C-alpha cells in the first residue's frame, strides 16, 4: 500500500515538475550558448561601437565619462590623410593575396589529386607555413628581405640585380608583405580545395575522357564548375582572414615606411595602441569599418547562395 501511494505521489510529482520545468529546462539548455554569445560576441561588439561613438581622452577613458560625439570619430577617420591610402592598400593586399593564394592553392590541389610517390610527404610539406607561429614566419621573412644582409638580395646580387629595399622602400613594402601573405595562405586554400576535389565523382572524368576532352578542358568544364561551392566558401573565408591581417604587416614593416604598407587593420592598431597617447575612439571606428566590410562580403555570399 505504502509503496503504491509513494509511487503515485512520485508520478504525480514528476509530471507536475516536468510540466513546470518545460520552458525553464529549455532556457537552461540555451543559457550556456546565450551567455557565451553575449559575453564574447555581443558585448565586445557593443563596446567597440560605443567606443567609436564617444570622444575619448585618456582621462575620460579611465573615469568612464566620455561625452557622446556621434559620428565625429568616423568623420575624423575619413578626413585623415591616412584613410584613402589605407583603404587602397587593404583592397590591393586582400585581392592580390587571395587571387594568388587561390590560383596557386587550386593548381597544387589538382596536382596532388594525381597520386604519385611522395605526394603525401610533399603535401605535408606544403602545410608548414600554416603550422608555424606567425611571429616566426613573419620575422623570418623580415630577415630574408633585409635590404643589406637579407638572403633574397644576396641571391639577386649573384644574378646581377641591384639591391632592392624590400621592406624600406615605399615602392616595395606593400609588395613584400603581400608575397609573404600569399605564402602563408596557400596551405589553407590547398587543403580545402583538395578535400573539395575528393567529392568530384571519378565517373564524370571518365565520361569526359571518353568524349575526348583534353586535360585543359577537363579542368575548365568539369573540375572548376563542380568545385564552385567549395571555391566560394574558400574565397569568402580567405577574404575575411586577409582583410584583418595585422600581425604579419606589423612585424615586417610596422605599416611603413610612411604608410606605404598601412592597411585599415594596422592603422586601427596604431591609433589605439601604437602611440604613447592612445586614441581609442578613432581606432574603434576603423575597426568597425573593417567589420562592416567583412559583413558586406558575407551577405553578398549568402545572397549568391540563394540565387544559385
Amino acid at each position, binding site marked *: 500500500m505504502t509503496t503504491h501511494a509513494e509511487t503515485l505521489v512520485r508520478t504525480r510529482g514528476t509530471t507536475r515538475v516536468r510540466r513546470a520545468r518545460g520552458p525553464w529546462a529549455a532556457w537552461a539548455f540555451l543559457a550556456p550558448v*546565450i551567455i557565451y*554569445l*553575449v559575453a564574447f*560576441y*555581443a*558585448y565586445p*561588439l*557593443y*563596446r567597440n561601437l*560605443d567606443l567609436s561613438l564617444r570622444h575619448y*581622452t*585618456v*582621462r575620460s*577613458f*579611465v*573615469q*568612464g565619462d566620455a561625452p557622446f560625439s556621434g559620428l565625429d570619430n568616423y568623420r575624423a577617420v575619413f578626413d585623415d*590623410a591616412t584613410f584613402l591610402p589605407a583603404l587602397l592598400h587593404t583592397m590591393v593586399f586582400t585581392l592580390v593575396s587571395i587571387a594568388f593564394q587561390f590560383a596557386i592553392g587550386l593548381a597544387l590541389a589538382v596536382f596532388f589529386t594525381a597520386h604519385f610517390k611522395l605526394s603525401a610527404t610533399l603535401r605535408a610539406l606544403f602545410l608548414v607555413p600554416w603550422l608555424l607561429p606567425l611571429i616566426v614566419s613573419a620575422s623570418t621573412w*623580415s630577415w630574408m628581405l*633585409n*635590404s*643589406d*644582409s637579407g638572403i633574397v638580395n644576396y641571391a639577386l646580387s649573384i644574378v646581377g640585380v641591384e*639591391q632592392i*629595399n624590400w*621592406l*624600406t*622602400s*615605399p615602392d616595395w613594402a606593400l609588395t613584400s608583405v603581400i608575397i609573404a601573405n600569399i605564402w602563408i595562405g596557400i596551405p589553407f586554400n590547398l587543403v580545402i580545395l583538395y578535400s573539395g576535389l575528393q567529392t568530384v565523382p571519378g565517373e564524370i572524368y571518365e565520361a569526359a575522357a571518353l568524349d575526348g576532352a583534353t586535360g585543359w578542358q577537363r579542368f575548365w568544364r568539369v573540375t572548376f564548375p563542380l568545385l564552385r561551392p567549395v571555391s566560394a566558401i574558400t574565397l569568402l573565408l580567405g577574404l575575411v582572414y586577409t582583410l584583418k591581417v595585422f600581425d604579419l604587416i606589423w612585424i615586417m*614593416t*610596422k*605599416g*611603413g*615606411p*610612411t*604608410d*606605404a604598407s598601412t592597411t585599415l587593420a594596422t592603422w586601427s592598431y596604431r591609433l589605439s*595602441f*601604437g*602611440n*604613447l*597617447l*592612445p586614441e581609442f575612439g578613432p581606432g574603434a571606428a576603423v575597426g568597425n569599418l573593417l567589420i562592416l566590410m567583412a559583413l558586406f562580403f558575407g*551577405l553578398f555570399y*549568402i*545572397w549568391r*547562395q*540563394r540565387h544559385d
Partner: protein
Amino acid sequence: MNLRGLGAVLAVTVCLLSACSSGGGGGDATSSKATDYAIWDPYPQFDDSSDWVKLLTKCGTDAGVTVKRTGYDTTDLTNKALLAAQQGNSPDVLIVDNPVVSTLAEAGVLTTTEEMKVDTAAVSPNLLAAGQQGGKTYGIPIGANTLALYYNKKVLDAAKVDPSTIKDWASLTAALEKVKAAGKKGITFSAIGTEEGSFQFLPWFWGSGANLTQLDSPQGVAALTLWTDWLKKGYAPNSVLNNTQTTSWQEFAAGDFAFSENGTWQLANAKKTGFEYGIIPIPSQAGGTAPAPTGGEFVTAPVQSDTGKYATTQKLISCLTSADNALTTDTTLSYVAATDAVQQKQVAANPELTVWVAAVKAAKGRTSDDLGTKYPKISEPMWGAFQAALSGSKPPQQALTDAQGAAGK
C-alpha cells in the same frame, strides 16, 4: 544558412545588445587583502630568483606586507595600467617608462609625490622633469639610461680615425667617409616608424638646436638632412628604416660597423662581442655633447580607493629608491642612477660608466619643457617625417613641414 536564418540571428543579437547595454560597464574592484601590495614593472626578463624581485620582496617584508609582483612587456604596460585604473584595481606601485608618466597623470591615474610624501630633492632635475606636469611631480625615477655612440676600435684603426677627434657633426661625417673608403661600414641606428625611432632621432634633432614645438625649423631640417645624407652616401645602411635598437645592435655586433647609436643597456652585450669597443657621447652640430633623450622608468603610486594603503606604499617606494637599493637596481638594469651621490658610487665602481653619467647629465626628458601629453602628438608625425625622408619619398624640408602641419592640428 539562408536569409531567414541570418535574420533570426541578427534579431537575437540586437535584443542581446539592447539588453546588455543597460547593465554594461563598471568593474568590480578586486578585493585584495589589506596586507597584499601589488607592484607592476616592465622587467619581464627578471624572474623570482633575480635580485630585482628579491629586492621587491624584501622591501615588502620590511614594511610588514606581502608584495605581489607582475612583470609586463613595456609596450603593454601603459594600456594595462589604463584599463586597471578604469576597472578600479590599479596596482599599489607602478613602475613605468618615463614618457608614459605624463599620459597617466593626465588620466588622473597617479598620485603626486607631494601627496605621497616622497622625497625627490636628491634627484637630478633634468631626469625628474619627465615626470612633472603643471608644477606637480608624479613619480620618482628609479634610474636612467640614454644614448651614446659605441665604436669598434679595430674598424676605426683600419680607417685611421681617432675617435677623440670626433667633436661635432662635420668630424663625425668625415670619420664615416674614411671608414667607407677603407671598405668598412659606417654607422647603424634605429629609424623605425615607432617611438623607438623618435628616441634615436632626438639626439640629432636637439643637437642641432631644434625645438620639438617647431619640427620644420632650419635646425630640424639640418638634423634630418644629416641622416638622409648618410643613407644616400652609403655611410648608414638602408635597413635602419626597419631597425629596432636591438637589430641595429646586432648589425654592429657582427663587427663590420664603425659606430652604433645605442643605449646604456647594451653595455653587458658589448663585452660579449669579442672586439674592442669604446663609447663617445653623441656630438651636437656645433660641437659638444648633444642632449639625448632620457630613458628609464619612474616609480609611481596609482590612486587607490582605499587611501589607508598609502602609508605602506610610501614605505615601499622609499625602500626601492633608497641610495643602497638604487645602486643594486641600477647595476642590475645597467642604468645610471638618478641621484648625484649614487652616480659617483657607480663611477667609482666602474670607470667605464663615466661617459654614460655625463650623457645622462646632458640628457633631456621627451615630455619635459612641460610638453607632457603633447609629446606623443609631436613624436608620431616626427617619425613619419624621418621615415619619409630616409625612404626617399619626400625631401627633408617637405617631410618636416608636413609633419609640423600634422603635429600642429
